[in-house]
């Protein structure tokens, strides 16, 4: 950097620093308004002293510890009794036990469905089906054993 320029930059920096310092000093040294302390005191007097979460009423403080003990027992009784009351009324939901799924061999499964619809029954024949003429012509061949039995004589004849 050119030395003259650098000197100019430094002088600018110095002059602006003086400006900034002067302004900030003026602001930092402004006098507080009159009566500030009194107003703060008044505000503090109005503020409730809520520093503690739990505090005994004043007339209980100097009494014997029996009162505190009784109060503590009462609070504990109410809390425990209330909790038990809620617990005894609210029961866990009943769980429906599902029958074990048995897979039948060769059949269709119901895929674990809770309920399966009843299917329509098939047609029922009231009268026996009459033999068709074609069926009448069919010669029913007797069984071979019966044929053999027919050639044989009955046992009673043989005994004679």
């Amino acid at each position: 950097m050119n030395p003259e320029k650098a000197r100019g930059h430094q002088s600018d920096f110095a002059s602006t620093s003086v400006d900034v310092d002067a302004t900030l000093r003026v602001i930092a040294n402004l006098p507080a308004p009159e009566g500030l302390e009194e107003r703060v005191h008044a505000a503090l007097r109005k503020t409730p002293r809520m520093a503690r979460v739990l505090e005994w009423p004043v007339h209980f403080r100097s009494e014997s510890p029996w009162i505190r003990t009784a109060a503590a027992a009462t609070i504990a009784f109410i809390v425990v009794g209330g909790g038990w009351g809620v617990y005894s009324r609210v029961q866990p939901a009943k769980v429906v036990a599902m029958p074990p799924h048995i897979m039948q061999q060769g059949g269709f499964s119901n895929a674990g469905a809770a309920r399966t619809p009843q299917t329509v029954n098939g047609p029922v024949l009231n009268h026996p089906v009459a033999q068709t003429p074609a069926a009448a012509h069919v010669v029913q061949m007797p069984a071979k054993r019966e044929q053999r039995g027919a050639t044989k004589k009955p046992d009673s004849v043989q005994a004679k």
Partner: protein
Amino acid sequence: MSASQAVFAGWMEFPKSAVDDEPRQHAEEQALAALVDEYASTLYRVAFSVLRNAADAEDAVQEAFVRVLRHRDRLDEVRDRRVWLIRIVWNIVLDRKRRAKTRPETDDVSELTRVLPAGGLSSDERAMAAQMHTHVLRCVDQLPPKEREVLMLSAFEELTSVEIASVLGITESSVRSRLFRARNLMAGLLNHSRSLR
């Protein structure tokens, strides 16, 4: 005393400070009153340097002491009460400044004209001075927050760099480096605004 009674009594036993603490409360209130008398004006100036409004600064001071009142049990644990109080009010005013909308420059000038000490200046001269200060403060507002905070606190002669570091929760070397950066940036901003005029 039966066992159960002993248990309940022990359970419900309050510390001495909570039950029979009338003298202690009185002492705490006196200590708080002494803090108000000693540091209210310092806190006001710190608050005004950020908020630049007399009423807002006074509100911030009151809020700071109300917070102290709520935590008065811990007053004995505080080592440097001045720095501790400045830290409380500093956090309050930064929070308020963040929430508040930016005021127009004319408001700042009129407020500064009102609060600036006369010092043998005519009303015109005071108005000019207020305008110049407002312009500088507007440039300060353009700085990054970290640099701006250090620069503003450095103007308080009663605060050392160690105390500024304690208020801001940073190291002393950070205070110095931020202050250096802030001054450089301010020089650039003011020169730029001068060249525009």
